[in-house]
């Protein structure tokens, strides 16, 4: 394991970690703040991925495309289309209570997946789309291109983090958490519950779409396997719970920690004695399953637990705090 | 048959700092004791602690000779203890009839139908609503269902958390009459009340809790007569 190898592994870990961090931030907006149990992350991720891929690829004749737009426009498109999909879903489903929304969103993600697989005029179906460009592709080649992409990904993570922190600390976020706790009394307090929920859902879905778009540009190839619910939906939930839902820093940290566990366990299981080698992947899955239990039982409120955002003005008037 | 309830030096809470500290009181068999105090004083916590729903860090609870500390509620109910919590005291999606029935699962009364008749005659309003889900009842009707459920097991010790909250004056009177009646049969009653003046009129003893500690206690009459107590806890001097 030489140093440059390790370096580039870290780069790749952080790229996917960054994409997961975006998904976690998005889910944190929906669940941590809004209490919306979205179990269809993979669907919105997929919509974003395909949108960005369709917008940025050259004509291929096998699927809709040939727009050859720059990557940032593709990502904006991903956010818009995923957001619109989220809006349509929210319009129908947002009134559902937590676990029911979860089921509905799993169903919707599954339907979106079927559309992606079956409508080959749009997506080239299971054969997938290739030659998806990377942003800033002219700057470097080979593995160094990953470093550039890493910067690109984390710039977006940073922007989303700042925006969602602002959302979290704001009266908007407070009302959202109030709605999450008790809908009837929130609407008795003049909050348009449906509007808040739709806003939250759409914002979250748009960010999920961006994450999807980024993954398409990273893989440079997109097929329906990229939207596998195991790796996209469930793993993101695990990350958020481990990091501490309701906390943006926790969401990012959870994404990195769990993705590292997920990825790095293979390095260790690969070092098992040879008679175990063919089974190492199952041992790895077992380990991941058990580690998850440890995380849940030992770090149950997350690496960084939810805490109420500071009420502003307190610093200005310390004497008011004395009660 | 019935036994004395004796609480000694009880300290308990919900995992964090203790909510009640060093509480002592005892209720003789066939007596009505009422616990009073400001909101958040720890009255409900005391009842919950006796009913094994909190974490006890010191002290003991005795029913007669029997140590109740550490017993699970599923053990307490068959021993003849039953309780009505302050809130969330009905099964909302079960019908009124089923709610009453649940009261008999853990400690079946000798004659279930007779007990049920008796309970329904206490709360005639419920008769027309036996097949309605309890979650659809009015506030006062829920209170009746909750009381009814607790009485279905023919308990020996009843813990009541604000049984008359939300009940109309007529019902308040009926409940207090009922409590006096069942005291006659030797049942021990420990209740929390905010309708304090009325409660003290029927109570044998009153205990006032403040900030989780014993503040004062005495017979109902003594407490009613005490000027400070009237001012601080019973809503000032008579209007």
């Amino acid at each position, binding site marked *: 394991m030489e140093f440059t190898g390790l370096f580039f592994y870290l780069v790749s870990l952080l790229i996917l970690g960054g994409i997961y961090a975006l998904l976690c931030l998005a889910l944190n907006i929906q669940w941590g703040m809004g209490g919306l149990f979205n179990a269809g992350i993979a669907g919105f991720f997929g919509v974003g991925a395909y949108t960005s891929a369709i917008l940025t690829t050259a004509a291929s004749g096998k699927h809709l495309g040939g727009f050859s737009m720059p990557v940032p426009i593709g990502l904006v498109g991903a956010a818009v289309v995923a957001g619109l999909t989220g809006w349509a879903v929210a319009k129908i489903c947002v009134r559902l209570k937590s676990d029911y929304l979860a089921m509905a969103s799993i169903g919707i993600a599954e339907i979106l997946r079927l559309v992606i697989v079956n409508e080959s005029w749009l997506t080239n179906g299971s054969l997938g789309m290739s030659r998806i460009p990377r942003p800033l592709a002219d700057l470097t080649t080979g593995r160094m291109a990953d470093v550039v992409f890493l910067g690109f990904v984390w710039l977006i993570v940073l922007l989303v983090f700042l925006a969602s922190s*602002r*959302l979290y600390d*704001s*009266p*908007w976020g*407070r*009302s959202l*958490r*109030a709605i999450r*706790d*008790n809908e*009837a*009394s*929130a*609407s*008795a*307090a*003049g*909050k*348009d519950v449906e509007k808040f929920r739709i806003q939250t859902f759409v*914002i979250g879905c748009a960010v999920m779409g961006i994450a999807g778009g980024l993954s398409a540009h990273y893989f440079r190839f997109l097929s329906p396997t990229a939207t596998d619910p195991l790796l996209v939906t469930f793993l993101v939930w695990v990350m958020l719970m481990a990091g501490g839902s309701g906390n943006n820093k926790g969401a990012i940290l959870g994404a990195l920690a769990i993705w590292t566990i997920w990825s790095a366990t293979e390095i260790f299981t690969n070092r098992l004695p040879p008679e175990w080698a063919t089974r190492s992947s199952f041992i790895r899955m077992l380990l991941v399953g058990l580690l998850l239990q440890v995380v849940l039982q030992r770090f149950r409120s997350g690496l960084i637990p939810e805490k*109420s955002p500071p009420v*502003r*003005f307190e610093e200005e008037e310390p004497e*008011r705090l004395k009660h | 048959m019935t036994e004395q309830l004796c609480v000694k030096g009880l300290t308990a809470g*919900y995992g964090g700092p203790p909510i009640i500290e060093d509480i002592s009181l005892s209720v003789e068999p066939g007596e009505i004791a009422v616990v009073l105090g400001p*909101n*958040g*004083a720890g*009255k*409900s916590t005391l009842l919950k602690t006796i009913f094994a729903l909190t974490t006890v860090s010191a002290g003991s609870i005795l029913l007669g000779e029997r140590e109740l500390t550490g017993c699970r509620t599923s053990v307490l109910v068959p021993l003849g203890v039953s309780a009505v919590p*302050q*809130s969330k005291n009905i099964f909302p999606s079960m019908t009124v009839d089923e709610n009453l029935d649940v009261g008999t699962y853990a400690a079946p009364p000798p004659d279930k139908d007779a007990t049920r008749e008796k309970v329904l005659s206490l709360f005639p*309003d419920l008769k027309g609503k036996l097949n*309605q889900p309890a979650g659809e009842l*009015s*506030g006062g*009707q829920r209170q009746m269902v909750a009381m009814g459920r607790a009485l279905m097991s023919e308990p020996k010790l009843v813990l009541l*958390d604000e049984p008359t*909250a*939300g*009940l*109309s*004056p*007529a*019902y*308040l*009177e009926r409940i*207090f009459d009922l409590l006096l009646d069942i005291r006659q049969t030797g049942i021990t009653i420990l209740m929390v009340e*905010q*309708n*304090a*003046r*009325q409660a003290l009129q029927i109570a044998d003893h009153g205990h006032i809790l403040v900030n989780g500690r014993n503040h004062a206690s005495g017979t109902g009459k003594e407490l*009613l007569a005490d000027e400070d107590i009237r*001012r*601080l*806890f019973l*809503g000032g001097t008579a*209007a």
Partner: protein
Amino acid sequence: MIELEKICVDFGGLRAVDHASFKIDAGLITGLIGPNGAGKTTVFNVIAGAVKPSSGRVLLNGRDITKLKPYQRAQAGMARTFQIPHEFTRLSVLENLMASASAPEGENVLNVVFRRGRYSAEEREIYDTARETVRLLELDHVIDEKAGNLSGGQKKLVELGRALMRKPEIILLDEIGAGINRTLLAKLADKILMLNKERGLTFCLIEHDLDYVSKLCDHVLVMAQGSLLTQGSVETVRRDERVIEAYFGGGKYEAHS
């Protein structure tokens, strides 16, 4: 101020409110009393929009609001409390109050992300009002406690505080007295009277404690079995035979012995 016109509410086969028509006048404190299950809470729910009447109209200041959603009615100046407390369980007491205030600037997503200056003045005012309300309700020592962990009575107080935070024209109070310590309740009564007299706030309250009603209310509506039995001053209804029969018992346990 509020007018109900021939309101009926049906739950399945049960008619909970039966052609109820009455007025709640502006600037007064109106009491709504009646036996358990008379339909009082349901009437509140109809006024606040939480329950749709099967027939009849609700007017607010002469305007038909029957079709409006609860939040729209709240925005139109109505505040209510719930008989069974509906606190925001995971928010602190202070946040419960602040979240109940109306914050049009701070609840705008674009302001929040891009123009934070726009809502700071509004937010500061909300904060000050919330602290004041906490003091009034004697909840200072639990101000940062999650509301879900409060005692039954404290939750009721938060319920009242949240209604006050709305700065409404009319407040509907559903049995705030139940479970509240009498000494504190008396203080709250003073506050209600003060708000009524000084700010001209209209109140309508459901209450079972008649002394309390008589201390506060200018006018009393009596409901029984879903319809209005009678109305008038406290003294008149107290003497009404039908009210005594339907509502009072023998008066054995006087609150003010």
